[in-house]
């Protein structure tokens, strides 16, 4: 994780207390912290100081965080992690489908936020994908299209394999149901197809997880989507 050190993080939030907290903690984790108290300032800062990652509060005084995200996404692929209130599932989905890389629900634990930042930074830096993904006993060979669990092959249907591939290549990041549907089924899906998705995830868990009710690989983000857990997250 040493590569993350020194990464420049822009915090866009109107609450001085949150800014202060993030500044102190992120600096302690050796990140470089920039701050912006309004959406306009955030967009401006993002354009002039080229941060490596943006932590964006969705509730800003001057404009909606969603609009800030849209404006930034017009010209930048910089990873964005949004901060939201708990009950706002719809906001989270909108932000994630609108280009945010991940979300953290307020109130959040610092460990959680730092973990999300690290994952997002890693995925942003990692343009070239490894042909073989390894997660503990699970091996996914993207070149040969096979999956091994604790040394033995696991038989997956094409759809299950596609799902696993997308989740695992984004390990640590949340993937919304819509993103999964779009990537696996292409343009031919309906919102109502999300229950097929659930069935497939159920099948995958049955084939890969020791105990499907205590998943260690594919975690459900209720109402949002799924997250392939990095091994440190599963502990």
């Amino acid at each position: 994780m040493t590569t993350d050190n020194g990464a420049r993080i822009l915090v866009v939030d109107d609450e001085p207390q949150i800014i202060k907290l993030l500044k102190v903690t992120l600096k302690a984790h050796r990140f470089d912290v920039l701050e912006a108290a309004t959406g306009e300032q955030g967009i401006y800062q993002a354009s002039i100081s080229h941060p490596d990652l943006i932590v964006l509060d969705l509730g800003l005084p001057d404009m909606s965080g969603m609009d800030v995200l849209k404006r930034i996404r017009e010209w930048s692929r910089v990873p964005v992690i949004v901060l939201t209130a708990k009950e706002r599932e719809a906001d989270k989905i909108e932000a994630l489908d609108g280009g945010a890389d991940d979300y953290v629900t307020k109130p959040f634990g610092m460990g959680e936020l730092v973990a999300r930042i690290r994952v997002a930074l890693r995925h942003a830096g990692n343009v070239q994908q490894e042909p073989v993904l390894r997660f503990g006993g699970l091996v996914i060979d993207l070149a040969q299209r096979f999956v091994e669990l604790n040394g033995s092959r696991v038989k997956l249907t094409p759809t299950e394999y596609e799902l696993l591939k997308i989740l695992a290549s984004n390990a640590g990041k949340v993937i919304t149901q819509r993103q999964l549907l779009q990537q696996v089924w292409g343009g031919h899906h309906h919102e109502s197809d999300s229950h097929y998705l659930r069935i497939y995830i159920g099948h995958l868990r049955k084939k890969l997880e020791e105990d499907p009710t205590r998943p260690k690989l594919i975690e459900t983000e209720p109402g949002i989507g799924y997250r392939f857990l990095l091994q440190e997250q599963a502990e």
Partner: protein
Amino acid sequence: MGKKAMSVAAIERNGKFMLKSYGWITVGTAALTAVLHAFGFAFDPVNIALLYLFPVLFSAVYWGLAPAIYAAAAGVLAFDYFFVPPFLSFSVEDLRYLLSFGVYLAVAALTASLAARLRRQAQLAKEREAHTAALYTLSRQMTAINDIRVLLENIALRVSATVQAQIVIYLPGERAELERAAWSPGDNGFGEAESTMAIAKWVFEHGRMAGKDTGTLGEFPGLFVPLRTEERTYGVMTVRLEGEGLATDDRNLLEAFGGLAASAIARVKLSEEAKLAHLTAESERIRTALLDSVSHELRTPLATIIGSATGLIDGDGVFSAEDRQELLATIRDGALRMNLLVTNLLGMVKLESGMLALRREWCDAEDIIGVVLSQVKGFQQRRRMTVKMQDPAPYFPGDEVLLEQVLVNIVSNAIKYSPDGEEIVISARTSGSWVRIAVADNGIGINETDRERMFDKFYRGPGAGGTTGTGLGLAICKGIVEAHGGTITASPRAEKGTVVTIALPAGEPEMPQGWKQREEERDDNG
């Protein structure tokens, strides 16, 4: 006049009917004369005169006084012409017969008027009976109706049918101004005319009748009856009267209707007020409970947070690394507890204000329980969580975020009220058209009365004494489960402890046949 009286009066005015009755009397008298003439001289003339009283009585009873008098006259003439010497002449030989005629006429007039009065009385009795029946029906209907509008419309229709006139009922509206509240069909502007409204207002303010044939505005083509009980006036009923006024009887009836309507309105108003008073008392009770609960539940964690934080700031260097860790953990736990409280409070507000919108999607019980287990991992300590899942896992429509919240609440309770190291069993299965998810603990158990009330807001069982909580969690669970059309119940476990079961409608996932098959066929992965 009542409906029947009106119709009889109308018939009496009907010339055809009158002619008919006079015709029948003429024919009858002629027939009687013919019979008497055939046998006539066997009778004494006095008896003959008496026999001529029959048509008189008959007419009096069936047609009233005027036909009876006509019958008497016809009788006298026939008697004189055919039976009094000289026969076949109206002249009278024996002047004593004139006295007989006089007596006959007097007797005829007297009996006729008596019979007619009897008939009228019978008719009145019938009318009264009809009025009483109308009042009775109305009063019976009114006790069954609890909506003022429906009630008034009912009254307007019935009164209108009874007095054969248009009815408009006024009630004070929101700004205490009289408004048309109900009316019988065919109100063509009468009820809304300025003059009508003005009189109605006067009647409402003074609580006295006005309009047609009353001391106030006697010439106005309408009668205004206040709807009043002993204490106050609730509104005004107006009868539109184009032609003649109402008979005293009908006015009395109208007043009776007015009184009935007033007491019905009073009854509805009182029950509304009582309901409101009950609600106010209830919300007062809940507010007090909320304040108690919230102030206690907020202050306790706040005290630990402030205490620990100030301790750490002021006593820097005094604490060992372990002490510091402990104080920091206290701060975290206090804050988490406050977070739970705020979440529950917001949840309750959402539920109560009807802002809770379900996002129904197909849920996988296994998936939901998995999320719940990871949520409670932080505070289950050494309690063992066992999952008994039906294979395949139940699959049903629901809001997974809210249902997860429900289960987290129930499982947290199970953890809270059972000793460390015990087992908590979570099971999910489909039975019939229901999906049942049950959480069983080996805890202190709940007695029967509490099992009913534990899902009430702010209710905390006697066993809850030492543990923390707001008494909101299970109330929210109940609200969410019921919003799904399901039920939540608690029952004792065979040995010890409690089982909380939520039952949710299973629904039918519209899984196309062959969809799965196709998928298996494409299975070409190693």
